């Protein structure tokens, strides 16, 4: 059953995933890959919420609902970010963060 797996295993997996996302955020240069790293980070936080909900408060559903809301926020964020990326690409024909360095136009 589920009790064979301690809660901290889930937390370790999600921590590692979070920091892998941070590594991608620090080292990537393409805007879309940075967005993917942010998705990894959000996803790891979701695993945390769900595992806490299942292990600590199984009769309430707070972690469950907050993961739902985080998924919705991530979808909104991805949509707006991709709109901005496409707009930047039209203006500069490039989405490298090091070459797009003028914010004003």
């Amino acid at each position: 059953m589920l009790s064979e797996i301690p809660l901290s295993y889930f937390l370790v997996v999600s921590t590692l995933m979070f920091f892998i996302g941070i590594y991608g955020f620090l080292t990537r240069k393409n805007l879309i890959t940075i967005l993917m790293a942010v998705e990894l980070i959000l996803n790891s936080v979701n695993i945390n919420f769900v595992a806490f909900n299942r292990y600590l408060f199984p009769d309430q559903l707070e972690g469950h609902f907050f993961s739902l809301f985080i998924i919705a926020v991530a979808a909104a964020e991805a949509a707006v970010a991709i709109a901005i990326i496409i707009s930047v690409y039209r203006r500069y024909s490039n989405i490298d963060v090091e070459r797009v360095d003028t914010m004003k136009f």
Partner: protein
Amino acid sequence: MSIHELMFYLFSGMILLFSVLTVTSRRILRAAVYLLFVLVSTAGIYFMLNYQFLAAVQLTLYAGGIVVLIIFSILLTSHISQKFEPLGVKKMVFSALAVAAGALLSIMTILDFGFDTVVTTSQNPDMELIGTSLLSYEKNGYVLPFEVISVLLLAAMVASIVIAKKEKSK
């Protein structure tokens, strides 16, 4: 080793392997596909924890929606055969050091902390319970975040249309 443990190790191994590949792959389209694998294995973890509705949302919205959006924007903005230049050693080493220090600190804190877990009968919240709690305004009701999210989604939709639309040629 029971089937639960086996599934947990399988899914977490897939998550970690494909996360690393997502942030290190030099071909952008492959990175997006690896991200898809990460999200699907996360849905597997939700299934394992017996939250079927959340796992279905994860599969349809994350793996189905966001990844397709990312792949479309990759196709719009870069050549498929394009490879990134390899990373500078200095940047890679320093980022890895910072990340390893943070991960080590967090993991040690987690393993030190004793959680008093109460795994009782792990029942699956049915659709009726989820629906009524989303729309109830009493205790354990989530109608306020629900409404805020709906306004946020509308605003995001309008904003992305406005930002991405072509400007009129003068």
